[in-house]
């Protein structure tokens, strides 16, 4: 409990410091930080469409952050979330376009399973390589990001049949049978690209929390991540659990990519670089401080900043780059959590010292008075 409270306050301080740094930078460059931030809030919450945009942005971030959290519980640093998401995205869109006549009730679950499954395979490979041969998952996943990036582009440009492509660089839109968008949600948010994906993401928070905290599998994954020797002593297979954790992690990222494909963009298009949802997901997981509710909150803050930032240049003239600086500052302060914990401690120590001193003074005064009286 205490640790969680502390994590929450660290996250709050990180955001506060990030905003202050952003304000200082705006001032330095001659912009008014107040109107900047007002524009940011206005652009994020100004209309139902904006709110829909924030929720659309949150969806993949929640999933990739969950993926990162599961992997790190098992002692893995999964940098490959982007590639795993791409695997799901390309696979699910390709599958959906290949069967335009399959009824939605079959199409949607199978497309989700295929997307998540491809992500899981993409996560399994580095997990297995480390468990079996001790290959560093950091290097393997970074390299696999490139493999999936160019593999995805290559499949799009050279493998997919012309019949499912809009142009050389873009697929056709998936049909209504595969789309995760829901009419009432679209109407409610005035045509934002929000989809049922947000509900899947929220559901996955509960599912992952349940697996990690309430099942023997989660118990084993945590035990292996914290102390592989003791886990082996207790009869757990460190290799098996680590590999499973990486597959779950990749599966969640794959699901994020699938929802980008079937919910947000409704197609796949040539990527210039690894999708940012992978890296932003890592930051969201870190900002969430290892708590599943924290991930939800952190994803919301990230998305507000992103969507709000889009509107800042128009209504306040603050360049979009500054928003990225604010976001980066927040991540920086989370990374420097040690610094914040230290500051908290210092402040507490100063308070204690002041309290003791004032108590001493008080005591000294009280001691003096009767003595004087006695003289």
């Amino acid at each position, binding site marked *: 409990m205490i640790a969680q409270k502390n994590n929450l306050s660290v996250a709050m301080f990180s955001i506060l410091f990030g905003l202050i740094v952003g304000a200082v930078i705006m001032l330095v460059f001659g912009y008014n930080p107040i109107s900047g931030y007002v524009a940011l809030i206005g652009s994020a919450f100004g209309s139902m469409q904006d709110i829909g945009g924030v929720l659309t942005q949150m969806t993949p971030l929640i999933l990739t952050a969950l993926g990162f959290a599961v992997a790190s519980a098992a002692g893995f640093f999964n940098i490959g979330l982007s590639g795993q998401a791409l695997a799901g995205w390309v696979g699910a869109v390709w599958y959906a376009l290949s069967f335009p006549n399959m009824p939605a009730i079959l199409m949607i679950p199978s497309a989700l399973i295929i997307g998540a499954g491809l992500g899981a395979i993409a996560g399994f490979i580095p997990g297995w390589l480390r468990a079996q041969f001790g290959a560093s998952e950091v290097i393997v996943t970074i390299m696999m990001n490139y493999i999936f990036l160019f593999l995805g582009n290559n499949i799009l440009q050279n493998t997919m049949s012309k019949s499912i492509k809009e142009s050389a660089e873009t697929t056709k839109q998936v049909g209504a049978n595969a789309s995760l968008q829901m009419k009432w949600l679209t109407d409610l948010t005035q045509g934002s690209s929000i989809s049922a994906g947000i509900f899947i993401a929220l559901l996955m928070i509960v599912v992952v929390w349940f697996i990690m905290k309430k099942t023997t599998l989660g118990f084993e994954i945590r035990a292996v991540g914290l102390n592989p020797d003791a886990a082996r*002593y*207790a009869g757990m297979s460190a290799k098996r659990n680590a590999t499973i954790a990486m597959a779950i992690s990749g599966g969640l990222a794959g699901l994020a990519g699938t929802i980008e494909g079937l919910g947000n963009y409704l197609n796949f298009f040539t990527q210039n670089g690894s999708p940012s949802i992978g890296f932003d997901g890592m930051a969201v997981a870190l900002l969430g401080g290892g708590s599943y509710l924290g991930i939800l909150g952190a994803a919301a803050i990230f998305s507000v900043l992103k969507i709000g930032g889009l509107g800042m240049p128009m209504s306040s003239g603050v360049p979009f780059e500054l928003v990225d600086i604010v976001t980066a500052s927040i991540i920086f302060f989370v990374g420097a959590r040690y610094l914040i914990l230290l500051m908290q401690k210092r402040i507490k120590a100063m308070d204690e010292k002041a309290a003791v001193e004032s108590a001493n003074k008080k005591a000294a005064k009280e001691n003096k008075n009767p003595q004087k009286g006695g003289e």
Partner: protein
Amino acid sequence: MTESTPVIEMRHIIKKFGDFAANDDINLQVQQGEIHALLGENGAGKSTLMNILTGLLQPTSGEILINGKKVSVDSPSKSDALGIGMVHQHFMLIDAFTVTENIILGSEITKGLSLDTKTAAKKIQALSDQYGLSVDPMAKISDISVGQQQRVEILKTLYRGADILIFDEPTAVLTPQEIDELITIMHNLAQEGKSIILITHKLDEIRAAADTVTVIRAGKSIDTFPVAGVSSQELADLMVGREVSFKTDKESAKPGKVVLSIDNLEVQDSRRIAAVKDFSLDVKAGEIVGLAGIDGNGQTELIQGITGLTKVQAGHVKLNGEDITNKKPRHITEAGVGHIPEDRLRFGMEVEMTLSENLSLQTYYKNPISKSGVLQPAEMDKLANKLVKEFDVRAASIQVTAGSMSGGNQQKAVVARELNRDNNLVIAAQPTRGLDVGAVEYIHQRLIAQRTAGKAVLVVSFELDEILNLSDRIAVINDGKIVGIVDAQDTNKQELGLLMTGMSLTEARAALKEEVDA
């Protein structure tokens, strides 16, 4: 006792962590030139008190007087300046540096831009000679023995002008001969006017080294008195707060059928060198077999080989006739092997998980703690509460992390978990390492109760007292091989000591006879 001003006086020290008072009104007075022992069980509050004296912790209330003057020790550097030096249990030395370089680290003397190691080495040599430490200032740390490394730590404090030296469990890492040397050094230091605080729970050492002892129990200072004329039994009773027996009573063994049978076992260590060679041993139901030996003679590899944590190269391990050689650890555990590992922090527990989770570490996947793959926290806590009560594990709650508990209670938790299952065989490796007499007595009783219940018990220990106290039969291992198996009644420390060096039983008995004859 002299009535002069004490060098150190700690008055009514209280240190609270939340609701828990680690120090609850402790008083301590140390006179100049005295060796003052601080005796207490694990978790009694000795380390907290010393951390307060060295400025690592601030007391909640109470005051510290150095030479009669009230001081506030609010940082380690303040403590240094006041002439207080700590000789840590775990040495803080850089292996690749020389003795001199290690000692001057942080307070280097410079000549222009270069280090003036010569002057420092001279000063260190002089200090070493003055106190009879015989340390070569130019030797590399990696080339000197553990005992000498400890003396480097002592020199470090002297070099910085310490007048008050705190020794934290200084003998834990030393051989018996090195312990004698250390006690001589402490006497030398005291004669030269240094004051020494000796933190320990080893009673023999207090009687050999200390002038005065302060007993701490459950955060309170119980009594301070001169050591002369006090027996170990009296010290132990005071420390624990009840009568302690060193010799655990047990009926004579009624060994049954063979439970563990090890045949011509060969196990390699991490460097792929055979650490256990052609090793054969039987342990029967209802008997305790002690495996004596000097650290590093293959004991670790043997246990890991039996329990499936390391691959066995050759030979067989059988449990009640079933071949368990190279089976998975869980298979072996489920076949009825309880294993108290020698390194409890590395193998025995998940220090960042709760006490409750740790007590379920071997049974978490079984009904009733897990139902169709879903954990049942209520059942887990029920088991934990039962074990905590039964095995007297003391912790603020079963939801605290195992790492926050004292060593003795961690060990009790591991013992509780391993003995609670229905085992055929219990392997206890260093079951009481680092524990105080109260906890040792308790764990010994539990192991003997396993024997009484008809289980086979294999105890591996470097402590001959422990082996002699527990075992019915004693096997001695040297360089991965058994050099002799003797009945506990027919042997003694001297004989075992010679066997441990690799002498055969006949050679050892002949050597001892010669000694008596001469």
